[in-house]
């Protein structure tokens, strides 16, 4: 199917619809409003946001670089396994291309400490990047994604549903919408407890259309919750361009409805993401309420699995049999890959003297080795016991096996 956005499909079809007219109207209104009266409601990256990355230590910057590399090489290694090892059962909704978003946000959070001290992160059906950035153990995640008994969630969860309370990674919400509300609910609980934690949710451009998006921001704003909504706009929800579900170019514009800051950042620049997240998190922790951050980004693989990808190569191009609404053109994928978040950060760190070429190469080699060993460890882990499927339904005991009659 040809590449198209909603508007191009409607205009090409020559069939003016009421919704198209209304969309144009809303666009004009949104644009005018932003220009005239809302500058105080908006913080723009590279503008009103402070360059808080100025205060990051060299060690912290190197750690962030390693995190981005870990996310990238975990995915590349797993994609290669999916493509070349017929016996490998794991799968993924790949995050490659979006590493700067998870890394920049989580760098502004508390990730170590007691459960009532760490900041909480709620993730999406594309969770492995968020998980690694929050500090989830790579080996155990690899094992979980391969359905092993010693995996992160003992084989009950697998890729779209992983969680790790020990680092405040509250879990991947495989649906679109409910995770937002739960995350705001955690912020509500935190505020009542007075524990100075912040609750962060990652969501995609597809969340805008859900009732949950609006209910979450409205209630978080009304209650001044310690909550940050990081909306990763990678242009496509599953296979549909976001223009099918949102009347605005910048989804962050929605924040003005709820009288909270709506910030657009370049999701390919980890430091811009960090700057925005740092402000939002400090605001939330100080009791000043929620922030919506929209990170403009892109994924290098298709929605699910590795169709169109080749072993040893980054990204997926060409035909995806599942891409039934909008087909991502190869040139669009390659244009985004030319602004690769890891390349951008590497150049910045070398420019700052934090790393040199040799040290940057060494960091990458170390991460590749770590990832390789993690998958090797996972491969050796035991499979689940069938009857354990009856456990963990309630706090104690097992349910009855009903399948035998």
């Amino acid at each position, binding site marked *: 199917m040809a590449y198209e956005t909603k508007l191009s499909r409607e205009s090409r079809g020559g069939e003016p619809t009421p919704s198209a007219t209304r969309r144009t109207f809303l666009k004009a209104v949104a644009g005018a409003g932003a220009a005239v009266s809302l500058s105080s409601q908006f913080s723009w990256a590279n503008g009103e946001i402070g360059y808080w990355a100025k205060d990051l230590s060299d060690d912290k910057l190197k750690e962030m670089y390693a995190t981005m590399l870990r996310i990238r090489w975990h995915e590349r290694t797993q994609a290669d396994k999916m493509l070349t090892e017929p016996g490998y059962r794991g799968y993924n909704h790949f995050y490659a291309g979006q590493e700067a978003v998870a890394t920049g946000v989580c760098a502004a959070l508390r990730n170590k400490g007691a459960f009532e001290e760490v900041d909480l992160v709620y993730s999406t059906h594309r969770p492995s990047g968020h998980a690694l950035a929050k500090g989830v153990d790579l080996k155990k995640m690899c094992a979980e994604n391969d359905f092993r008994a010693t995996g992160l969630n003992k*084989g009950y969860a697998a890729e779209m549903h992983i969680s790790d309370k020990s680092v405040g990674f509250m879990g991947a919400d495989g649906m679109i919408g409910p995770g937002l509300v739960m995350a705001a609910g955690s912020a509500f609980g935190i505020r009542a407890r007075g524990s100075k934690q912040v609750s962060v949710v990652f969501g995609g451009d597809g969340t805008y*259309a859900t*009732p949950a998006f609006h209910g979450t921001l409205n209630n978080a704003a009304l209650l001044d919750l310690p909550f940050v909504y990081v909306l990763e706009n990678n242009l496509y929800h599953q296979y549909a361009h976001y223009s099918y579900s949102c009347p605005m170019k910048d989804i962050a514009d929605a924040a003005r409805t709820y009288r909270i800051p709506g910030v657009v950042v370049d999701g390919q620049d980890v430091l811009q993401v960090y700057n925005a997240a740092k402000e939002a998190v400090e605001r939330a922790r100080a009791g000043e309420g929620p922030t919506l951050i929209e990170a403009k980004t892109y994924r290098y693989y298709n929605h699910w699995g590795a169709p169109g990808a080749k072993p040893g190569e980054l990204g997926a191009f060409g035909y995806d049999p599942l891409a039934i609404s909008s087909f991502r053109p190869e040139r669009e994928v390659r244009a985004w890959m030319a602004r690769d978040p890891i390349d951008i950060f590497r150049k910045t760190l070398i420019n700052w003297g934090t790393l040199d070429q040799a040290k940057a190469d060494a960091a990458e080699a170390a991460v590749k080795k770590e990832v390789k060993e993690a998958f090797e460890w996972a491969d050796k882990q035991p499979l689940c016991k069938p009857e*354990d*499927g009856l456990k963990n*339904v309630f706090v104690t005991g097992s349910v009855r096996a*009903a*399948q035998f*009659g």
Partner: protein
Amino acid sequence: MARKSWMYSVLEAVQYEMRQRKDMVWLFELTPPVASNPGKPVINLEKEFGRTRVNNTGIDEMWMAGATLGAGLAGVTAVTYIPYQGNGMCFQMIQNHAGKLRHMTGGDAEMPIVFILEMTGQTPGFAGQHSDYEIDTYYAHIPGVKTVIPSTPRDAKGMMASAIRDRNPVVYLYPAGLRNLVEEVPDDQYETPLDKAALRSTGGDLTIVSSGAGMPEVLEATKRLQESGVGVEAIDLRSLKPMDTETLVKSVQKTKRLLTFDQSYYTLCPGAEVIARVAENVDGARYKRIAFPDAPPPASPEMFLWMRPNAEHIMGAAKQLLG
């Protein structure tokens, strides 16, 4: 007549009805109503009928179900296709509105509408929120809404035609695990009743009752049992509400042995209703009920495949009933 896939058969029925009713609408989410089939023209409802009638917006199943209901109340025949992950998000609109409005309005409300609810729970590795076969029970419980669940492409087409023509709201469950089934399906439009179970085999020793994605396992076990000399009456419910009590009772009056088989959770699974109705009307019968345990489907294929009811389980339970 040609061999047709499930979705091609369904869209063929919808296409026919949309050509007859110039205002009939179809709402989808991320699954455009497009199907192809060897030797047949591609069906693309969006292209044929335009985006005023065939439309998607964002991921919002409450909108999809509510808009379908509202269109129906305004006198427009409407169908929506809600994908499996969202088939509980629309529950309020169907349970508390569609199911009650005719009664609340003293019979005035018209609802020529169909909610196609995709359901899964058949795929090892999907797990958790991506496994949701249990909605058969939830929707069948609602008064004022017919809940049907075809198990073959041929029934899928005929029951879609009937559902669209029915003036009541119809929940049309689509077990996605059956998407690869192919069989001979007539080209012309035809109706398959929404209140009649289907006998898939006849026999005098044992009645096995199932529906939807349970049927392939039932048919396999039936074949094996028949080959070993056991007379099996395999009944495909096809409609959970209304439930065809007469066919069930007649069969068990003859066999005196009833085995129900569900992919839904054990507690209140459709088989529980089947057994209750038969027990009220048949004396001296023996019963067994196979269902998915009362546990969410785990990701690990080792756990999941052990828990998921299959033909082997039917063989074991049948042996106990016959012994």
